[in-house]
């Protein structure tokens, strides 16, 4: 039995689609260009994979030292992990507070003026471009060594990241729902509270928690530059070849990161 559309499928001259450019040449060209760039970059970073193979014995010695963690200073390290979590908690809070105004002003559909939009965007770019370790070095000179400097550094950098995420979330909201609030003659703050916040809140909270997880990882090493927390002990034990101690610190950091990730992702799923 012939299909009812058989006539359409087989009848008449074969259709002439517009000509299409061959993709193969372009793919090869792109691959060659990519290979050239990566080759040059490898030269720059002195990429010598053979040395890795040759020196595999050294790695064995290194690993062996780490197989016997020392628990002599466990309580001190555990406390420093608590300090690290507290740095991340407050750093994320500071980041949240910074990101809300920046994100609102840096969203194209909400910003009161293009100049304000531009300024907010560039401010967030600066905060994101400067690494938290650089900020930490600055704050250590400003407020002294310790967790406070580390917290400020984390907060400022993450504030730029969250602000950017918030402004992009706001730019993707449904404009109809905002119009529905603005159309009753509500003022700008009410339009934000009713038309914008309900639309962005679940996503933004999820971003905040994701950044908290990332802040835990950053806080775990920010002590290397004097920002307080477990990072200082990581740096100190590795640099002075106390392999057993360093192993303990690394284990604690791994445990801390895993725990906070699990808790945070649970909360994230519950929030959405």
């Amino acid at each position: 039995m012939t299909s009812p559309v058989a006539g359409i499928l087989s009848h008449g001259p074969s259709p002439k689609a517009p000509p299409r450019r061959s993709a193969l040449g372009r793919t090869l060209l792109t691959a060659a260009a990519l290979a050239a760039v990566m080759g040059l970059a490898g030269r720059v970073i002195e990429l010598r994979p053979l040395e890795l193979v040759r020196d595999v014995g050294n790695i064995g010695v290194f690993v062996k030292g780490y197989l016997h963690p020392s628990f002599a200073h466990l309580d001190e390290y555990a406390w420093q992990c608590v300090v690290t979590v507290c740095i991340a908690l407050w750093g994320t809070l500071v980041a949240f507070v910074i990101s809300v105004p920046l994100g609102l002003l840096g969203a194209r559909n909400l910003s009161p003026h293009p100049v304000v939009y531009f300024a907010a965007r560039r401010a967030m770019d600066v905060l994101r471009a400067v690494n938290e370790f650089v900020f930490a070095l600055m704050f250590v000179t400003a407020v002294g060594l310790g967790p406070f400097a580390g917290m400020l550094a984390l907060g400022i950098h993450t504030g730029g990241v969250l602000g950017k995420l918030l402004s992009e979330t706001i730019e993707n909201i449904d404009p109809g729902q905002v119009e529905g609030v603005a159309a009753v003659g509500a003022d700008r703050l009410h339009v934000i509270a009713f038309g914008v916040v309900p639309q962005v809140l679940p996503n933004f909270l999820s971003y905040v928690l994701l950044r908290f997880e990332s802040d835990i990882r950053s806080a775990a090493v920010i002590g290397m530059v004097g920002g307080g927390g477990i990072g200082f002990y990581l740096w100190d034990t590795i640099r002075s070849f106390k392999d057993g101690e360093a192993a303990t610190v690394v284990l604690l950091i791994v445990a801390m990161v895993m725990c906070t990730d699990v808790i945070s992702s649970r909360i994230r799923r519950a929030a959405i």
Partner: protein
Amino acid sequence: MATGAEAASGGPEPEAAGHSPRRHRSVITQQQDAASLGSDMSPASTVASPVVVLERVGRHFGAQVALRGVTACIRPGEFVAIIGRSGAGKTTLLRCLSRAIVPSEGAIRMGGYDLRPLRGAALRAHRARVGVIYQQFNLVRRLSVLDNVLVGRLPHLAGWRRYAALARAFDAAHREAALRCLDHVGLLSRAWQRTDTLSGGEQQRVAIAKLLAQEPRLILGDEPVASLDVINGAMVMDTLRRIASAAGLTVISTLHHVEYARRYADRVLGLRAGQVVFDGPPRGLDEAALRTIFGSVPDATENDLPLDRLAEPALATN
């Protein structure tokens, strides 16, 4: 956030759960409107709506002309349907009236004031006086039904209440007004439900409750029933019509289907290529008039809307 406990303890409010015996009684009749909800209306206005005068209104977007020389005087309480083909300028005209856009030429006056120079607080005051109902409802989908109705109360808040509302906290009087509006459209039992859990027809009725809560002086409809089925569409139009005639409000609405215009409008403005080519009562929409407006007699719109076969009780219930 408005909580259930707050509302429940807030005095003699309509019961928010279950079937309400008051459902079909008009809550906002003309007298009650003035007494309980009309606190912000000027005392002189027993007929709520202002006269709307359009004088040679034109609007172009770049080189494209959307409206040309639209002149009309809309009397208070008229139910005006704007019909025409897609791209005829219906929505542009409506957006000029809500002052979402400014006409390129001509003037629109509402009551005593000209729409053109409105800015800032004056523009917001104009928007508060004009209630708009949209094809896509434009409710905040994640908010509760009641919170969406309370959005209509926002322009009526004064002093500290404006700031409390930022946390979605409203005092008992405003919440009661919102619950009354919700009761009026028969959705009181859905007050705490998230708005996007409602059907399209229910959401449009929530939008009408929000419109009531806004206490507008004029109602604009931007294809209010285009995304609803016939039963829900007729129910929404019935509700609009009832509210408008009870409160003496003008309704100006674009309508895709000629049948809706025939059934509900007092007056039809037919637009073609941005110009008014028909202005008269719906009974004047004969074949020749339709041909002038649409270029041909739109068979589809004649046949697929069995509005006349819908029984009135069927509309009132459900």
